[in-house]
């Protein structure tokens, strides 16, 4: 499965368009990380726990999108876009979408 955020795959020809595929996940942080974050809020610096949390969440959203693309017979997803929105205080939705295609 090729995933790319440009509209073509260099050197390959798109033979079939299969429409949009998407994947999302909503995640919230747990209390332990929150307490660390409150302390970090005083001294500053990177919130490693949050970085990992969002990284994992994005990976999961991407995996879901790839799963969906596979199920409709695609072998590549092009023009992939990521988007983040906060559903409520403390919860974030990670959303990824793209165009499923068949390339030769």
């Amino acid at each position, binding site marked *: 499965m090729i995933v790319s955020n*440009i509209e*073509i795959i260099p050197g390959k020809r798109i033979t079939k368009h299969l429409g949009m595929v998407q994947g999302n996940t909503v995640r919230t942080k747990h209390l332990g990380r929150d307490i660390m974050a409150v302390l970090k*809020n005083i001294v*500053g610096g990177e919130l490693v726990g949050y970085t990992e949390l*969002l990284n994992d969440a994005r990976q999961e959203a991407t995996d879901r999108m790839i799963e969906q693309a596979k199920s409709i017979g695609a072998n590549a997803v092009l023009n992939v876009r990521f988007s983040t929105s906060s559903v409520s205080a403390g919860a974030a939705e990670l959303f990824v979408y793209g165009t499923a295609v068949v390339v030769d």
Partner: protein
Amino acid sequence: MELIPLLVLTIIGYLSGSIIERRHFRSIRERESQLIGILTFSAKLPPAEDFDKQSVLVTGNVVISVDYFKHISAALRNLIGGRVIAYETLMDRARREAILRMKTDAKEKGASQIFNVKLETSSISKGGANQIGSVEVFAYGTGLI
């Protein structure tokens, strides 16, 4: 009397925050010069002569927290308006760090050029009362191998 803990937190925030920030900028500059060989472009498409290369999605993200001093100085700035330098450097750090992580990802995957680089910024919490003030920057693009 209520001002004393506030003042102490502000001083702690200022001291530790500026040390962490200086250290972070130093490490960013170092890694930027190490990764200078990985080229990044905001152009959508690679030039035609690169069309025989393979493409791979590369990403990098970082969440950076404010410190208490930044929080207070931004709150004071809010009263009179103008530049909030404390937050400008925070955003600068976050963006450069995210791009560096994306470049590192590209290097691990064997790519030397990244096209269509997109940067996405989100504040995880709004930084209001009793909330955590932090910013996330996510950088992604298509690496050519």
